[in-house]
């Protein structure tokens, strides 16, 4: 039987506020345990929550970016359960009335574009951490993270493969950083996903029983966990079994998912509106103020780049982050489409590779947009060939200065003087009678070998187009 995979993601993005969502305590990752927790965070008797406006603004920015509806009135609710790292015995979240409803995200998988629908996005507070190591049979509690603002973004079950899930997660990850609401640091847990996975016979329109895989904090784990889970579910079903609705945990060491708790022992969270917080009202004026401060969104900038002659794929890569898009725009100021296309190739190719190797962001690039444009201009005006340009680029990365300086210093200027090239062509023809004969007898390959000889003799500086035409003339070709 053919099976279809159905996936929905719940993503927790930690909002980049300075203080917590319901207290004034600072948020600093990696601080000594319990030093970033005030009386509200540790839930002393009598303390009360006060909503951080900055967290709400970030949630609204997200809602606007995905074209969702911003609820003019949303409600904070208490999700009640006992756990030592949950100081109040309840988590303040949004339940029936979230701040953002609906919205969509465009993703690209291979050459396919797809619209993923969002169910909702709501504000909530994070819990603390339980530390099970180093306490000799006891558990340590660190409440630094307690009260950190989170935006939980819930997608519809629109995704049909692990590749789509990863593309969605990456697009979302880029978006939250694009609109400055989350630093996206996955190692520190600032962006983490839970995946709801089910399978069904291809063509069926009824959803299968799903399992939720918790806390996937890298794109690779997300991909592998889904792939494992899909295989597992298909095996169970093909063996005549049935899927039990449950929460599962992905173990990256063993590359498998394991049951955490079943639906039967699912907790009753006894949600009810938090009486300590008034309903959250978003006025039209506030919404307009936030709207006015929104940056141009990736889709808009991608469309603008395509109007400058770029392919959809190139344009998509350039909106991977706002910094990349800005770099491209600085680099292509006043450039015509052919130069813009070259610029995109250099950013998405050589520069991106170098940045990846160095593990740094484009804002930390050792080559500025102006410098890289200088290099592209030298290619466009024929001063150097694309091949030589690679060497110049490496030298620029190594800190040897502007492209012009490097070209001059190393004598890399392309030879376009036809007299000089003619001389070398003559020498090469004289020195390689066999290849000349081969070519003349119809072996096209021999021609390439002759071109190579000329390029070698000029240390790659000859203008390849000129070499071609002069050789052909000389050999009596077309």
């Amino acid at each position: 039987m053919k099976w279809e995979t159905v996936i929905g993601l719940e993503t927790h993005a930690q909002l980049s506020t300075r203080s917590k969502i319901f207290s004034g305590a600072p948020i600093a990752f990696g601080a000594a345990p319990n030093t970033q927790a005030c009386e509200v965070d540790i839930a002393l008797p009598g303390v009360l929550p006060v909503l951080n406006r900055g967290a709400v603004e970030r949630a609204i920015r997200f809602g606007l970016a995905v074209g969702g509806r911003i609820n003019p009135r949303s409600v904070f609710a208490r999700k009640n359960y006992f756990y030592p790292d949950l100081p109040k015995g309840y988590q303040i979240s949004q339940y029936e009335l979230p701040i953002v409803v609906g919205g969509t995200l465009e993703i690209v998988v291979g050459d396919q574009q797809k619209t993923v629908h969002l169910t909702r996005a709501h504000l909530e507070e994070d819990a603390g951490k339980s530390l099970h190591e180093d306490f000799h049979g006891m558990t340590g509690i660190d409440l630094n993270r307690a009260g950190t603002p989170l935006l939980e973004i819930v997608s519809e079950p629109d995704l049909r493969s692990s590749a789509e899930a990863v593309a969605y997660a990456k697009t979302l990850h880029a978006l939250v950083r694009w609109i400055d609401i989350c630093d996206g640091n996955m190692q520190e847990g600032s962006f983490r996903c839970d995946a709801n996975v089910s399978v069904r016979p291809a063509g069926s329109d009824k959803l299968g029983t799903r399992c939720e895989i918790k806390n996937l904090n890298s794109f690779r784990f997300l991909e592998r966990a889904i792939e494992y889970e899909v295989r597992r579910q298909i095996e169970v079903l093909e063996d005549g079994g049935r899927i039990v609705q449950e929460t599962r945990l992905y173990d990256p060491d063993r590359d498998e998912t394991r049951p955490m708790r079943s639906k039967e022992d699912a907790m009753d969270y006894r949600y009810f509106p938090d009486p300590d917080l008034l309903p959250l009202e978003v006025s039209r004026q506030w919404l307009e103020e936030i709207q006015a401060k929104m940056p141009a969104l990736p889709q808009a900038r991608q469309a603008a780049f395509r109007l400058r002659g770029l392919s959809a794929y190139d344009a998509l890569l350039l909106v991977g982050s706002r910094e990349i898009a800005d770099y491209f725009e600085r680099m292509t100021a006043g450039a015509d489409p052919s130069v813009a296309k070259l610029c995109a190739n250099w950013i998405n190719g050589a520069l991106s590779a170098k940045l990846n190797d160095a593990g740094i962001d484009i804002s930390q690039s050792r080559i500025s947009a102006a410098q890289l444009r200088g290099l592209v201009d030298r290619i466009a005006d024929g001063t150097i060939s694309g091949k030589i340009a690679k060497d110049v680029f490496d030298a620029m990365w190594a800190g040897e200065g502007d492209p012009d300086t490097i070209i001059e210093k190393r004598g890399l200027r392309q030879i376009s003087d036809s007299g000089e090239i003619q001389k070398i062509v003559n020498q090469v023809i004289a020195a390689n009678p066999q290849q000349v004969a081969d070519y003349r007898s119809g072996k096209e390959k021999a021609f390439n070998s002759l071109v190579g000889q000329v390029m070698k003799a000029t240390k790659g500086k000859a203008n390849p187009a000129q070499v071609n035409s002069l050789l052909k003339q000389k050999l009596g070709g077309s």
Partner: protein
Amino acid sequence: MLNFTVKQLAVELAARRLSSVEVTQYFIKRINALGKALNAFISVDEEQSLASARAADQLLAAGKGGPLTGIPLAHKDIFCTKGWLTTCGSKILSNFVAPYDAHVIERFNQAGAVIAGKTNMDEFAMGSSNETSFYGPVQNPWDTAAVPGGSSGGSAAAVAARLAPAATGTDTGGSIRQPAAFTGTCGLKPTYGVVSRYGMIAFASSLDQGGPFAKTAEDLALMLNVMAGFDARDSTSLQREPEDYTRELAQPLQGLRIGLPAEFFAAGLASDVARAVDAAIAEFRRLGCETVEVRLPNMRLSVPVYYVLAPAEASSNLARFDGVRYGYRAPEYSDLLDMYCKTRAQGFGAEVKRRILIGTYVLSHGYYDAYYIKAQKLRRLIAQDFAEAFRRCDVIMGPTTPTTAFNLGEKAGDPVQMYLSDIYTIAVNLAGLPGMSIPAGFGDGNRPVGLQLIGNYFGEAKMLNAAHQYQQVTGWHLEMPASVRSEAP
């Protein structure tokens, strides 16, 4: 000094005829002598109190005193008080020394008031007799066989026995007004949101409101002037211009319209209470007030509505008492769940457990709509009744309680009877309105009767005006129990 009002003490202090140290010592001696038997206090810390008194004397000497500077006040043990044991009447907080001050305590500290001690109360303010306290019941100074009411029983008894000139309390369903009525004192619950709840240990967040106890309406106004005001740390605190609650005290009552809800005078009201309340209303008529009958048809639903909503909120509010970070933890347990279970089983008393169970039940999946949502809808209907009534009157009056103070142990075994003792006060909390109780004579067995005044939103000054004018022509508020009349501390 025994029967001095806050106002009178302030005059003596300002004139330096008395020092705060003298006044404080006087009342602490009375607390130690009389308070022990009454069991009105959980904590007394003479050293800390006298240190504040000395600081107050310096302020007074420098002529920088305010209306409450140097006055010793008794605070309900529900207010977190830095450096003081703050138990909320519970074993689970029996070792909890608060590391911060509640907003109310902060305000009194800024005003230069002295903390005379922390008063006994029903555990987590759940009770109407002060019998649910881990620290034992409080006796009513008027009759030691009687309860002082609850949950602010210790504060009411302290003012009634003249162990402190004034006190603080909290009122979720009548916990200030009912004990005030039972002890012949004045108590006021402000409009919801007027007094910050920051640092006031939560019972039912949407109903809880702090307020003062005193001997006179005028003293209540002075206390409220300090307690009230916006606090950014409480999201339900109302952002309003500060008001002087004494400003209308002297106004004549000519033409004041008093609403008398038929439901307050129906079956269930004891005849001795009815007589005293009728007499008080007659007095108001003599002062020039008009009376009109009003209807509160949904008031009968207020007790069941309250006993869905208050336990629901409480079940969640009390989840933080889990033995993990502070407070009592069971000495022996096998694992985390066992620690939670034993800590809470041993740390909470029966009434608190009952309400946590009720609250957990009504919030459970499948019951939430039938109980919690339904109760919220009825709550709005009850508030609408009052809105309707206030179209026809300025202040509502009636009995605070259906009977005078009942005996210790009399209702302890029957929660429903106990809950019904708050039948006239609960609706006021559900509507978020201000209410107060003032002494209006005595019923059978010389037990005090309280007259309840209910104001419209932010109608505190109007209520205080009516009560003050009544107290200018009557003397019930100056009566003292025989056992405490000796001037010697």
